């Protein structure tokens, strides 16, 4: 048994090594005085200093975070409401149809999502910019939230609600005191997933972003022609460290708060 255990460790170690290799590469070159992501010259903090001097980049970072937080919060509300409604739908066929549509969106390639939103916004007459990017991010985050929350709702025992109702609880009470607390881990993972998807998205934002508004990923892409500045590497390193802290923090909070030892993570796919 001990032997398999070691094998398991080696295997996992290899998987982690591959997963973190490109990140290590990026972090390494963020200290390159040569200014390129190849040919390392000398160690320098230059790019990190530049991150803190570049107000334009800072505004873009703020934009990115604003969009991520707002879209994650709003899509969590819509997604939770949707999941509750879906879980309570009597028509099984109707529910399955809606779920299929939910999942079609979830598995749609970013190119199609982005392009179709571009057409949609052009047709409705929404200006490309903050609003369109926010709407788009909400739109592609909703199904993730539904997927995280729905299993929690389905595993909830109906007797719990019946008991509450027998004790004279109103419908609102049942929701606020019984249902929401029970599905909180699902809500949290949904929110968290939505947040990070928004932070990472490039293709959809690329299609729907407009004048005066840019997110980090769009900025990185437009730098490609003349070479991506190492300032981006430095900034990404910082953002990565913050995200790491958030993840570990989230883990600690969720394990402490959740009654069961395990936070359930549903299928996350997009």
């Amino acid at each position, binding site marked *: 048994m001990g032997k398999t255990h070691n094998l398991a460790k080696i295997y996992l170690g290899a998987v982690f090594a591959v997963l973190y290799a490109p990140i290590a590469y990026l972090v390494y070159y963020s200290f390159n005085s040569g200014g390129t*992501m190849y040919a390392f010259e000398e160690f320098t903090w230059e790019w990190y200093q530049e991150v803190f001097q570049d107000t334009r980049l800072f505004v873009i970072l703020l934009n990115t975070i604003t969009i991520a937080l707002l879209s994650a919060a709003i899509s969590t509300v819509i997604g939770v409401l949707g999941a509750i409604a879906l879980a309570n739908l009597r028509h099984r066929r109707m529910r399955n149809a809606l779920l299929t549509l939910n999942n079609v969106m979830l598995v749609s390639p970013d190119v*199609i999502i982005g392009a179709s939103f571009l057409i949609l916004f052009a047709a409705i007459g929404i200006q490309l910019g903050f609003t369109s990017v926010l709407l788009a991010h909400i739109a592609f985050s909703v199904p993730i939230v539904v997927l995280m929350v729905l299993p929690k709702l389905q595993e909830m025992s109906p007797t719990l609600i019946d008991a509450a109702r027998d004790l004279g609880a109103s419908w609102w009470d049942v929701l606020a005191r019984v249902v929401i607390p029970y599905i909180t881990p699902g809500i949290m993972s949904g929110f968290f997933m939505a947040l990070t998807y928004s932070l990472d998205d490039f293709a959809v934002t690329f299609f729907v972003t407009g004048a005066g508004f840019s997110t980090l990923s769009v900025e990185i892409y437009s730098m490609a022609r003349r070479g991506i500045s190492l300032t981006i590497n430095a900034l990404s390193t910082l953002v990565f460290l913050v995200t790491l802290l958030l993840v570990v923090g989230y883990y600690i909070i969720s394990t402490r708060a959740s009654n069961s030892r395990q936070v359930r993570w549903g299928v996350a796919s997009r």
Partner: protein
Amino acid sequence: MERIRNLFLVPYGVWLLLFVIVPILMIGYYSFFDIDGVLTLNNYKRFFSPTYFSMALRSFWYAALITVVCLVIAYPTAYFLTKTKHKQLWLLLIILPSWMNLLLKTYAFIGILGTHGPINAFLGVFGLAPRQILFTDFSFILVAVYIFIPFMILPIFSALEKLNPSLIEAAYDLGASHWVAFRRVIFPLTLGGVKSGVQAVFIPSLSLFMITRLIAGNRVITLGTAIEQHFLVTQDWGMGSALAIFLVIAMGLSMWFTERGRRVR
């Protein structure tokens, strides 16, 4: 009461209508027009021309390959993960790299896999270098698997978590070997997770773009690459939409198959 619950469906329903149903209908509409804005079925006819048809076939082939490799690597990973302490944290750390900007990571891969990159330097120690790794099928599959593997690991991990350990013990008690226990008990019981994972990897890989150029040097051209080109470069939205409709249909079909499979089980 029932009414209040249905009220909850309103925002979600609006979302579905606006961002799922309307876009699908619009893309469908666009797909019937050519570059002059004339109503035509030509885009669909063109899809069945040798160029696009072989592109679709190749897309499927590469997507299948990526999915299989993902599965083969992800299953043991998920399995071993369930055996670790703080497994939820490790799981999060598996997902974490996917939150870093993809273009940056891809540039890192160009550096890592290049003729003068660290991998070739390592191979050089054994006298195996220089070897062309970049712009090969190998590098393409590697990076694609890198991108998608968290989506395969997650559902399999959840399925393994739900597995009742007493069932496995029972299998051992009945004299099953590790392999038999895996094949007859563990794997069948986690089939649901495997199916979700396959779905989450296969369909997006049909539409991979960007890395087809950056990592595969356009040796691989997927439907996604073609859609991107049509929407942005050639401005032939009709053809791009027709390809998109085809992808949506492929998506729906694979959903339907996996769902049906689940019900039978």
